[in-house]
């Protein structure tokens, strides 16, 4: 059993990366070195829009999250929320989508012997957005995650 523990989750700093449709809100996480932990990032979709979910039918473009490992921080898993169903008007088809505000949890582990202090993890959210009338080209938002190792 993987035992992971968040030592502190302090909202002393909120970083927002945004484009026209999607905002990525991140908070600095403070972790004791050598322990596993989790970062939750909040994704906010502009009212009236949705993005394709993480699990979609083959032809569609899923929402994905890329996080580059730091030398002392290793990403173990990324947990996406369940999708909502969006009915295409005039059809019997339902799409798996996200809208409103939702969270993605990033599970990570840290080495015991680490450089103490602030570490930055480079992240990129890839998504394809639509509203009820049209769809937009796939886009990406880059952001930084802050992890303070103590």
């Amino acid at each position, binding site marked *: 059993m993987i035992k992971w523990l968040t030592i502190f989750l302090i909202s002393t700093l909120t970083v927002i990366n945004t484009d026209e449709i999607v905002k990525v809100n991140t908070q600095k996480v403070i972790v004791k070195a050598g322990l596993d932990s989790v970062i939750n990032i909040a994704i906010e979709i502009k009212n009236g829009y949705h993005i394709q979910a993480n699990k979609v039918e083959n032809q569609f473009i899923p929402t994905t999250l890329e996080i580059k490992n730091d030398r002392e921080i290793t990403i173990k898993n990324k947990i996406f929320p369940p999708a909502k169903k969006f009915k295409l*008007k005039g059809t019997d088809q339902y799409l798996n989508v996200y809208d409103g505000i939702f969270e993605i949890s990033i599970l990570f582990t840290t080495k015991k012997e680490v450089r103490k202090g602030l570490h930055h993890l480079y992240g990129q959210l890839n998504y394809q957005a639509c509203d009820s009338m049209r769809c937009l080209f796939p886009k990406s938002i880059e952001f930084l995650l802050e992890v303070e190792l103590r």
Partner: protein
Amino acid sequence: MKSILRVLVFIIASGFSASVNAQEAQPMLGQIAPSFTLSDLNGKTYSLEQSRGKFVVVHFATTWCPFCNAEAPNLEQLYKEYKDKGVTVFIIDVKEGKELIEKSFGRFNFSFPVLLDSDGKVSASYAPAGVLPSLQRDEVPLASNLIIDKDGKISYYSLLNTTSFDAKLTNLKQKLDELINVND
């Protein structure tokens, strides 16, 4: 001073009203459709000019666009119903590779050409000026349907006329019927 304020309010209100109307109306109606010459998946070249004398239905698509996928079988059905009535259909795929298009759209077995707008320039040329300025010009027409009449003029443009998504192409067919009947 009051009269100046009234004039200012009138000008602002008129501008707002015009902007709202521009968003609601079908754009570019009556205009000569921007010309294009594009290759299909087999490398055969098609131009809009070659189709003069026919009604041309154009659908701007990408393989990942849910609206386009939902419409696709109905476009094929429309083509079968109308091809003997002087109607031709093109899908213009925007900025995607041939292999992906073949793989994804292959399941629809289109009888009409799927044209490759590899750099998005044709799509951008169909983006009405000033409409959706925050979008890239080549993404504005995505999932739109147009009818270009026998003289090369735009007779129907579904761009901002989608208060309800017309997957079954009911409105498009209705307009086609009107045009065909007028020309009979």
